[in-house]
C-alpha cells in the first residue's frame, strides 16, 4: 500500500468563496477518505432570534444566504404561518412562487457558470454571469434590490406585480428561451467539460437516499423528489411541477457532476414554464393577510404552536421549524436546515476514489454559494484602457476555446 497523506482543502478555498474544510486522505493522487469540518462561519442566528419578534426575524432569515435569501424567508414565514394558523391570500401565494422561481433561475445560472469556472472554462463562466443579469434586473424591478429583496412577510408579500413588473417578467422569459440554449450547448458539447464532469463525484441512488441528499443533487442521482410536486405549496398547488431526473432525458442517471449540471440546466427551462403559468394564472385580490404589522404581531403574540415548513429551494429542501409561545412576543425557538446542511453529508461519499484535482469541482457540485460577479470588464493595465465584453463576444470566445483545445 502506498503511504497515505491527509491534506486540507479549505477553509480558505480553491473551489469555493466560503469557508469550509475538507480533510482528504490520499494515496498518491487518489482520494480514499474524507472528513468535512464546517464551523468557520457559524453566526448563531438561531440564538439571536430568541430576542427578536417574528417580523424582525424575517430580515435575519433573509441574511442567511446571499443567493437563496427569499427561499429562507419563505420557509421561515411558512413555518410561522403553520404555527399560528395564518392564511395567505392567493395573489400573495403566486407572488411568492414567482419570486422563488426567479431566485431559482439566477441561482442555477450562477452555479452552472461556477461549474465552468471550476474546470477552467472561464469564458463560459462569464457567459453564464452575463445571462444571469437579466433575472437580476427583473428582481430589481419587482423589489428595488438584487440580493435581499424584502418581498416576503408573514401572511403574504410586500410588493405587488404591477404592469411594469409583469412586462419585465414576460420579456425575461422570452429572452431566456432565445438565449439560454447556446450556453447549454457550448458546455454539454465541449469534450473537455464532459471529460471533467462525467463519472466524477458520483453519488449512487441508494447513497443519495441513505445520506439524505436533497434537491438537484438527489435528482441527479435519480431520486424522483421535488417538494413542489410531492407536497405542493403556495401557487404550486394549482399546477404540477414534474421532478427533473436524468433518466427521463438521457435514459440513465449516473449521479455524477455532469448529471447535476444537466438537472440544473433543465430546471432553468422548467422554471421559465412555471413563471409563464404563474403570470397566466395570477389571481386578483389582496397580497397580504394583514397589512398592519402591529396587528400581525399582536396575533402572533397570542399564538401557541410549533410549525414546520420544507420548501424546494434552488439547492433542495430548505426546512425551518418555529415555536411560538402564547404571551411571548419573540420567536421562542427556531431551527434552520439549509439544503447544503443535508447535501454536505454526502461529500465524503462523492470524494471516494476520485482524483485530488477534482476535489474543488466536487465541492462546488452541491453548493454554489459564491457572491455574484456582475459582468466581465477587461482591463489592460499597460495601456490603461477598459472594454466591456458582450454576450456575443463571450459566446464566440467560448466556442473558440473548445476548437483550440480540440486542435480544430
Amino acid at each position, binding site marked *: 500500500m502506498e503511504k497515505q497523506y491527509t491534506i486540507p482543502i479549505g477553509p480558505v478555498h480553491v473551489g469555493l468563496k466560503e469557508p469550509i474544510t475538507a480533510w482528504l486522505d490520499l494515496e498518491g493522487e487518489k482520494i480514499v477518505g474524507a*472528513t468535512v*469540518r*464546517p*464551523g*468557520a462561519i*457559524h453566526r*448563531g442566528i*438561531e*440564538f439571536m432570534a430568541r430576542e427578536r419578534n417574528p417580523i424582525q426575524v424575517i430580515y435575519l432569515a433573509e441574511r442567511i444566504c446571499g443567493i437563496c435569501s427569499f427561499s429562507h424567508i419563505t420557509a421561515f414565514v411558512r413555518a410561522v404561518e*403553520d404555527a399560528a394558523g395564518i*392564511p395567505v391570500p*392567493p395573489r400573495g*401565494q403566486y407572488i411568492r412562487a414567482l419570486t422563488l422561481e426567479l431566485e431559482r433561475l439566477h441561482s442555477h445560472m450562477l452555479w452552472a457558470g461556477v461549474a465552468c469556472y471550476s474546470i477552467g472554462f472561464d469564458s463560459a463562466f462569464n457567459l453564464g454571469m452575463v445571462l444571469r443579469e437579466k433575472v437580476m434586473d427583473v428582481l430589481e424591478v419587482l423589489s428595488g434590490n438584487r440580493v435581499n429583496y424584502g418581498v416576503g412577510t408573514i401572511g403574504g408579500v410586500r410588493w405587488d406585480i404591477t404592469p411594469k413588473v409583469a412586462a419585465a417578467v414576460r420579456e425575461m422569459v422570452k429572452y431566456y428561451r432565445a438565449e439560454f440554449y447556446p450556453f447549454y450547448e457550448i458546455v454539454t458539447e465541449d469534450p473537455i467539460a464532459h471529460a471533467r464532469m462525467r463519472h466524477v463525484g458520483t453519488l449512487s*441512488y*441508494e447513497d443519495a*437516499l*441513505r*445520506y*439524505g441528499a436533497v434537491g438537484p443533487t438527489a435528482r441527479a442521482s435519480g*431520486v*424522483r*423528489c421535488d*417538494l413542489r*410536486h*410531492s*407536497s*405542493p*405549496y*403556495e*401557487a*404550486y*398547488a*394549482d399546477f*404540477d411541477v414534474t*421532478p427533473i431526473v436524468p433518466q427521463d432525458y438521457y435514459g440513465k442517471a449516473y449521479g455524477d457532476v455532469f448529471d447535476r449540471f444537466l438537472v440544473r440546466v433543465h430546471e432553468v427551462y422548467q422554471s421559465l414554464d412555471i413563471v409563464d403559468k404563474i403570470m397566466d*394564472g395570477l*389571481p386578483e385580490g389582496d397580497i397580504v393577510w394583514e397589512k398592519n404589522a402591529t396587528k400581525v404581531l399582536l396575533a402572533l403574540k397570542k399564538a401557541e404552536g*410549533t*410549525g*414546520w415548513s*420544507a420548501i424546494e429551494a434552488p439547492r433542495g*429542501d430548505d*426546512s425551518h*421549524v418555529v*415555536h411560538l409561545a402564547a404571551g411571548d412576543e419573540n420567536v*421562542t*425557538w427556531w*431551527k434552520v*436546515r439549509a439544503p447544503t*446542511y*443535508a447535501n*454536505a*453529508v454526502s461529500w465524503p461519499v462523492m470524494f471516494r476514489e476520485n482524483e485530488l484535482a477534482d476535489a474543488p469541482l466536487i465541492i462546488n457540485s452541491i453548493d454554489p454559494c459564491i457572491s455574484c460577479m456582475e459582468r466581465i470588464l477587461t482591463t489592460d493595465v499597460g495601456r490603461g484602457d477598459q472594454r466591456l465584453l458582450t454576450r456575443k463576444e463571450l459566446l464566440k470566445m467560448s466556442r473558440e476555446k473548445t476548437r483550440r483545445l480540440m486542435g480544430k
Partner: protein
Amino acid sequence: MTFPTGAIRNVETARSLEDVAARMRSVFGEEVVTAVHERKGGVRDEVQYYDLWIAVEKGRLLETVDLLAEFDFPQFHVISGNDDGDFITLYYHFTIFQAAGRGKRLGVIAAIQVGKDDLTVDSLFSRLPAVEYSEREIREMFGVDFIGLPNKALIFLPEDWDEDIKPWRRDETGPADKDVRELS
C-alpha cells in the same frame, strides 16, 4: 439488524395518512398522534398534504424509524428542539412518500423528551447516516449524547470553544450574560 428490511428505494405508491396514523397507534398507543397539520394552498385553498406530529418515548426512537421504513425509506430532514426545563425536547423531522406522486408526501415529526438526569439517546446513524450533522449539532448545542454516533467532534462551534457552555440551553449550562457580546 439490517435496515431497512427491503431494498433502499422510495416506494412509488403512497399509503394514506389514516393508514400511517393507525399503524402508529397500534404500536405506540392511542396517545401517540399529537397533531395533524393540514397544509393548504392554491386559489381554491384546498389541503395539499399533511404533517403528522407524534410523541414517543425516547427509548422507542429506533422502533419509530423502523415503523416508518415499513411504509417508505424515510427521508431525514433535521432534529429541532428546545430546553424545556427538566428535559430537552427533540423533534425529528422525516418525510415518507417523497417520490410517490403529486401531493402524496407525508411529513412525520417524532418528538421525544430527554431528561436532564440522563442526557442520552440512541443514534440513528447506523440506519440513516444522513443524521450525522444534526446529531453532532444537537450534541454540541444541547449536550445530548448520541449512543452509537461514530464522530462526536464539534461541527459548527469553533475548535477553541469551551465545551461546558451549551449554546441552546436555558439553564446554568447555557451562555451566561458575560458570554454574549452585543454588536449593536
